[in-house]
């Protein structure tokens, strides 16, 4: 509702109407009354009275008729003289009545206009909210405005657009979900296929060893003697090394362990426990982490300046440590990968620094973890915290670390976010609400 325009319009309307009223109605009403009490009329009536009196004297037989006519004329003259005397009051009242009527109509019109404008403003506000919902990606936005004017038509368009967007979003989500599942299936298959293939090969070797061993021990003695005389190996084509079966079994165990680790990773992700929070000083917890893990990554130097003041938060110390380990692990891997891509000759490219900083943020505490690695690959940033979001080759990791880390912080009432990522490094922030 544009109050200034509304007031200006109404004022202009009122002035115009008053002007018209003054010019036309005032003159008309004044003239209307003036006709009735015009001096000529009154003078003629006076003259008529005198005539009737004279006629009554001159024509006595009809004197009574003249007297009656005289009385009627006298009454009329008396009324007109009353009107003449009260004309000013009558005209003023008449004008006041018209003015009141006009003011009432104008007031009603103004009220109707203001009410209409208010309703329009309310409808526009609802439309604005609906557009906000639409922009925020809320599904099936409803405006509940079915009028056939411009706003109503826009409302219908917004709802139509919302329906289309919701349908597309559902399709996209389905496709993304499907794509995620496909990626997960691919990684699962590969993670399982690698140890299974290796185990299969080892089993084939073991069977071969066993067969050769059996042939050497329980075969035809004549044949065994002939091969031995000719200096030929057994059925396997070579002589069985006494330590070979043990190596194969060890390899088999390693592959099975790899499968077990894969299964444990999934179990850890699927059954992430609830944090057992205690009141801790985040600065002290971070200091402890840096002290304990200073040598965990040979090519990653941890930099941390312990704050003087305490930063009290409610957290699960072990789970926070897991998050920090994940972030350090990612940084160390990224820095190592950069060194590999640089040819491996430059020792500087293989080492890096990870700086931890505590900072006050709105509503809580932020622990920033910044490295000087190559940064996060831009393509993966939008789904960085989703499971299986990784640039590592299959078999080198499932891409669950950041997903688990964020879940841990969300369970703390906080969050994990990527603050910035450039070719000169990436910075993550662990947000934790300040303890009450």
């Amino acid at each position, binding site marked *: 509702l544009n109050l200034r325009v509304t007031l200006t319009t109404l004022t202009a309307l009122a002035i115009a109407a008053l002007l018209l009223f003054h010019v036309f109605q005032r003159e008309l009403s004044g003239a209307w009354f003036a006709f009735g009490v015009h001096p000529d009329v009154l003078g003629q009536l006076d003259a008529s009275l005198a005539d009737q009196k004279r006629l009554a004297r001159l024509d006595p037989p009809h004197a009574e008729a003249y007297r009656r006519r*005289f009385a*009627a004329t006298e009454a009329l003259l008396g*009324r007109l003289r*009353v009107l003449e*005397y009260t004309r000013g009051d*009558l005209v003023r009242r*008449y004008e006041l009545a018209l003015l009141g009527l006009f003011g009432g109509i104008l007031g009603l019109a103004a009220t109707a206009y203001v009410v209409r404008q208010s309703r329009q403003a309310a409808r526009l506000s609802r439309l604005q909210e609906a557009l906000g919902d639409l922009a925020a990606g809320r599904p099936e936005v409803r405006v509940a405005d079915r009028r056939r004017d411009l706003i109503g038509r826009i409302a219908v368009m917004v709802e139509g657009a919302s329906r289309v967007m919701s349908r597309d979003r559902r399709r996209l989500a389905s496709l993304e979900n499907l794509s995620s599942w496909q990626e997960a299936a691919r990684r699962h298959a590969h993670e399982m296929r690698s140890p299974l293939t290796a185990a299969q090969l080892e089993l084939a070797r073991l069977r071969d060893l066993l067969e050769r061993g059996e042939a050497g021990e329980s075969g035809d003695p004549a044949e065994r003697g002939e091969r031995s005389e000719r200096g030929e190996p057994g059925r396997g084509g070579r002589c069985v090394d006494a330590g070979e079966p043990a190596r194969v079994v060890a390899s088999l165990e390693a592959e099975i362990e790899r499968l077990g680790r894969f299964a444990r990773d999934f179990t850890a992700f699927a059954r992430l426990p609830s944090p057992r929070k205690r009141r801790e000083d985040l600065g002290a917890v971070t200091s402890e982490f840096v002290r304990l893990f200073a040598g965990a990554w040979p090519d990653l130097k941890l930099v941390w300046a312990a704050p003087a003041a305490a930063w009290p938060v409610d957290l699960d110390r072990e789970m926070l440590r897991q998050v920090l380990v994940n972030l350090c692990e990612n940084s160390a891997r990224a820095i190592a990968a950069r060194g590999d891509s640089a040819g491996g000759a430059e020792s500087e490219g293989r080492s890096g620094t990870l700086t931890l900083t505590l900072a006050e943020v709105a509503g809580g505490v932020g622990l920033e973890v910044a490295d000087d690695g190559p940064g996060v690959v831009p393509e993966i940033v939008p789904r960085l915290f989703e499971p299986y979001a990784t640039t590592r080759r299959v078999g080198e990791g499932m891409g669950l670390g950041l997903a688990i880390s964020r879940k841990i912080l969300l369970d703390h009432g906080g969050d994990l976010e990527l603050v910035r990522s450039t070719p000169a490094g990436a910075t993550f922030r662990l947000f934790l609400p300040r303890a009450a």
Partner: protein
Amino acid sequence: VALANAADAPGLRLSKEGSLLLRPPPALLGGAEVKPRLTSGLTTTVSFEVSLRDAAGHSAKGGARVDVRYELWDEVFLVRGVGSDGRHFEASLPNFERLAAWWRELEVPAVAARGLDPRGPWKVKVAARVIPFSQSEQRDAQRWLSDSVRHPGPANESGGAPDPNASSTGVLDLLVGTSIQRRALVGYDWTLTYTPERPERQER
């Protein structure tokens, strides 16, 4: 309401019956605004409202009225009046000079001074109003105008007199009823001090 000169103030006298008699100012009827109205054929009413208050705070109120109507057919002034004691009086006067003479001699009971300190002094407030037509003439004009506007046909046999049974409701009647009022043509207010014990200094 104009305040008249002290010389034109009404005269006061206490009657034997205990009523304060009022002598209207002679100039009241002869003024430029009043005199032409007297011969209009309408009834000119001169009303007086009088209030008394003694030094002890006792008070009394009263009034009087004089109607003057010029009879156009007979060409005489008909005067009717009533005082605060309820007594009516009337006179028929052939011309304005006789009317003026009668007016000068008029003494009308304006208020009963019972309960006031007879020694005085009394504070007397007199209000005079000259109304150019009577209540019946007012009602007649209202009805006639309403009917004329509502039924703008030819006047009836009695020369346009309205039908008394005609309905008179609505905005027009409200307008006419509130507009045609008996507004005073002129009015005067006097505040006087009257002491009954000193006849030679009755008026101030």
